[in-house]
């Protein structure tokens, strides 16, 4: 237990003299170097690690995308073989969805959710660390397949029976199944953790309807995950049993129905779409009000539309299967239900626009990305409406029109939202502002690149170019303005412009990291609780747990309404408020010590999974490590034994594993 004694309080720090070398299992206490990160249970460090991991996978997935576009730039592309291309698009989607989008949203959720609700950590810090490490192990297993006989080649939707042992003979799909199961467990644990945190650990006075919208959207997402992940787990288990243990679930000669996989996959897969987009909605619902200097228009409507998107999202999965041969009645029902989901989504768009209406809009990079989301998502949403019409969808599905649609929604929507979050919260996390000039370059290259890449895909799709084809042929390209050759080339060029945009961001990160200039404590005149602490926040987040009276508590501590003019006037500076908190700090703040078990347990689970491919002995070893860690975990003392602490520093104060404020 790190017992943080504030300087100036009368308690003398206990000086601990190590007496013995101890055995294998004790709670780690290191506060420096790599151990600090490997064994940490601090939600902020975990959040940052989520972000780094997700960014690495974003780059990997991006390179895969560029290879795909290179292959398709010209007819009969020769860059990739059919086999490699199939692996490439499978892994591009899998990586982007499971290893970039979800973890990056997880990064924001982990870092800001406790800060936004005025908590000192998440409900289960060690489980939080476990989620991270399981995700990393899952990602490694997934990508290890590149070097171990080829990656999965069945598309991210992995339709049976094409994913069966006969039709996909390499181990790629096995690694995919195992990796996703591990990543799934990670997400499940993470979502339970975050739900408990939000429901149980809000600061006094923060009722559900006073929570920031980002927290709300994350809460909805976690509920979606809790109830959709088990379904994909079932599908993955069935596939695993079929591939590795001779089960017959998708064996048509035994009378199996391949549509079972599709139903299971999309019952998960459709809520998953909202899992991807809602965090971005949450982010811009923080960014837009901040830079428009107005609260979110229709807060309850935004919250409830988010919740109803989540709920209805469970009832529209079969719109991915309009061409799969469902009966006309089911098709009609799902078609209409899908149209219905456009309504709450539309409500959100209007609310964002009306938030800005009558505001005082300050165009920063964060704001630009948020606005970019609103516009680009609208385009993606409208093309979505065109294929909620089931008969039209039978012409559009599995063509580039669909690719265009979901990249507008996911890149124009989700990725722009996340980038908005980067620029908005960077000063909070690292205490330094990202460079706004480079930010502008970053933004414009991404906007232009994104529209150049995905805009032409609308044309390609309506001109009949199917997706997932490793080559397209001149013979089917047509001529004139809409010929496939020209627009494929444009899309490929656009993808490189897009990549340059992302490169600007990475350069910006490096430059910012090297810069010595510290960010002000309240650079954006922000509205929510996470700004009511130092940047970066202390290990214990808040010196004093805030008491909440308003939605947008921080803003209302700074501003009061001038009753005469109905405008707001500033009554306090954000920086002063933060300092005042420090002066009134609580004494005796308890934080959990780091732990070895999360990472060790993850390694055990990883080996256990690989045992499916490499045989029972490895499974036994994995199982033993898992069991060992699980029990070590349960029996772990909540406090590091006094004798476990490192020899005292010069100041004789060894227990302060959290830096003082």
């Amino acid at each position, binding site marked *: 237990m790190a017992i943080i004694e504030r300087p100036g309080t009368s308690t003398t720090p206990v000086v601990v003299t190590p007496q013995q070398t101890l055995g294998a299992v004790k709670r*780690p206490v290191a506060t420096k170097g790599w151990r600090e990160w490997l064994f940490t249970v601090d939600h902020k460090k975990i959040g940052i690690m989520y972000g780094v991991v997700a960014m690495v996978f974003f780059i990997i997935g991006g390179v895969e995308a560029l290879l795909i576009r290179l292959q398709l730039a010209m007819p009969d592309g020769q860059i990739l073989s059919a086999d490699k291309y199939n692996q490439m698009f499978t892994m591009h989607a899998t990586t982007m969805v499971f290893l970039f989008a979800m973890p990056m949203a997880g990064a924001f959720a982990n870092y800001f959710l406790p800060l936004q609700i005025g908590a000192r950590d998440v409900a289960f810090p060690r489980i939080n660390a476990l989620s991270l490490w399981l995700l990393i192990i899952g990602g490694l297993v997934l990508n290890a397949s590149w070097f171990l006989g080829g990656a999965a080649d069945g598309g991210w939707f992995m339709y049976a029976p094409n994913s069966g042992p006969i039709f996909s003979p390499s181990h790629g799909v096995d690694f995919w199944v195992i990796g996703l199961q591990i990543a799934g467990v990670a997400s499940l644990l993470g979502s339970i953790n975050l739900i408990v945190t939000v429901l149980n650990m809000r600061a006094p006075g923060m009722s559900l309807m006073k929570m920031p919208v980002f927290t709300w959207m994350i809460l909805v997402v976690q509920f979606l995950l809790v109830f959709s992940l088990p379904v994909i787990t079932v599908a993955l288990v069935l596939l695993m049993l079929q591939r590795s243990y001779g089960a017959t679930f998708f064996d048509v000669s035994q*009378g199996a129905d391949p549509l079972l996989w599709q139903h299971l996959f999309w019952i998960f897969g459709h809520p998953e779409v909202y899992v991807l987009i809602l965090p971005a909605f949450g982010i811009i619902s923080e960014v837009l009000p901040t830079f428009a200097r107005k609260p979110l228009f229709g807060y309850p409507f935004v919250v409830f539309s988010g919740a109803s998107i989540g709920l209805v999202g469970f009832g529209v999965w079969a719109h991915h299967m309009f061409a799969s041969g469902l009966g006309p009645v089911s098709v009609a029902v799902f078609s209409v239900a899908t149209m219905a989901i456009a309504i709450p989504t539309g409500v959100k768009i209007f609310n964002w626009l009306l938030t800005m209406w009558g505001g005082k809009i300050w165009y920063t990079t964060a704001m630009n990305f948020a606005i970019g989301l609103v516009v680009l998502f609208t385009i993606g949403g409208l093309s979505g409406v065109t294929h909620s019409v089931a008969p039209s969808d039978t012409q559009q599905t599995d063509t580039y029109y669909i690719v265009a649609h979901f990249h507008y929604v996911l890149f124009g929507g989700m990725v722009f939202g996340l980038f908005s979050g980067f620029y908005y919260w960077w000063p909070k996390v690292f205490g330094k502002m990202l460079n706004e000039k480079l930010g502008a370059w970053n933004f414009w290259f991404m906007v232009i690149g994104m529209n150049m890449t995905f805009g032409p895909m609308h044309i390609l799709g309506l001109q009949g170019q199917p997706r997932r084809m490793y080559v397209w042929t001149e013979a089917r390209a047509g001529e004139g303005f809409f010929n496939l050759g020209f627009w494929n080339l444009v899309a490929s060029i656009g993808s490189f412009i897009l990549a340059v945009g992302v490169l600007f961001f990475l350069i910006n990160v490096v430059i910012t990291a090297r810069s010595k200039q510290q960010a002000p404590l309240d650079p954006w005149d922000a509205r929510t609780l996470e700004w009511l602490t130092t940047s970066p926040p202390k290990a214990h987040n808040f010196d004093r747990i805030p008491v909440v009276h308003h939605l947008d508590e921080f803003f209302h501590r700074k501003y009061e309404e001038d009753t005469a003019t109905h405008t707001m006037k500033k009554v306090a500076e954000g920086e002063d408020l933060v300092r005042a908190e420090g002066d009134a700090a609580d004494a005796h703040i308890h934080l959990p010590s780091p732990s070895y078990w999360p990472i060790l347990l993850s390694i055990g689970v990883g080996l256990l999974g690989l045992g499916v491919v490499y045989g029972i*002995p490895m499974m036994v*070893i994995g199982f033993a490590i898992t069991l060992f860690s699980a*029990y070590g975990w349960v029996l772990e003392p909540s406090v590091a034994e006094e004798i476990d602490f490192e020899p005292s520093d010069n100041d004789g104060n060894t227990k302060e594993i959290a830096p003082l404020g």
Partner: protein
Amino acid sequence: MITPGSKYFLGLTGLGLVSAVLYCFLVNPSDLGAYALFGLFISAALIAGFSIFTSDGDTDSVAEAVEANTETTAPSFWPIVFALGGALTLLGIATNEIVFVLGLAVLVGGAVEWVIDDWAEKASADTEFNSFIRHRAIGALDYPGIAAVVLGVVAFLFSRIMLTVSKDEASIIFIIVSALIFVTGFLLAAKPALRGKSTAIISVVGALVLAVAGVTSALNGERKELVKYAKEDPYSISHRECGKEAGEHYDHEANGSVSLRSGVIATIFVEGGKIRAQEVGLKRDVQAITIPRSNSTTILFRNLDSEEYRLVANLGEAKVGTTDVMEKVGTCTQLTGKNEEQALTVTIPKPSNPEAPYTLTVPGATGEIKVVVP
């Protein structure tokens, strides 16, 4: 720095590696033994790394402590377990794989416990402290280990008993055993005085009875009909009886409805003792149905009469095994009652011969439907 504790594991690591490599060269690199030895090597290396990594205290004091304690070594029964494991492993190599794996597990388990015990005993002068760190190092494995053994033993022995006795007796034994457990629970809960010694006695007696009964049953073998079933496999396709009468096994508990409707290419009806056919997508009766070659195709059989019928597919003749004897090839549904349906799934790899086409017939009903495979 390398601590005394980790030295043991480093030693074990080396031993594991050497024996694994030897095993690969001398025996077989791809079988279980190699995996197990590599597993030993990896786990030992892991623990060694772990203990080096975490033992970051003052080595001098440890050295002193080790010196101070070299004489006070408590008796340990792990070496015996270790030896038992070794014996089992050897036995396993000679006899069968399960014994070998079991032996290896005991060997590794015993070795780890022994090494940790030994190491813990020498850790310091304070015996209480030593037992504490022993628990910290290995205690985590004790509970699940014991629990798993209890679960495994109970479940295995219990199931052996029931496999030996007859079907009805199995239920009765189950009732008796669970009732006994239940009653014991209530007795002990109600009379605290009975706890302590008598609990131990009950547990020991219970365990003994289970063990004796279980082992005896396992040696006795399974009950007759199970053995017979296993030998005969009455469900194999060649055992199907496709006549008018009910077969012994095949028609037992037939299904009355079909869930494969989406895969049906044609429906065969029996109505008024006659059969007729309809192709999916065409609303009139046909005399022949056409199905693609080599494709598993489902034909629905619907009986509209009150008598029970079955649909039989006659798929020509084929040589039996490698002999020259020709045998009729075919398959059939189970007997189907009035207004019930059954699906018949056939895969026909060869095109039909126009002179002797494949047919669908219903024993007891008139008419036949040709099956054309282009």
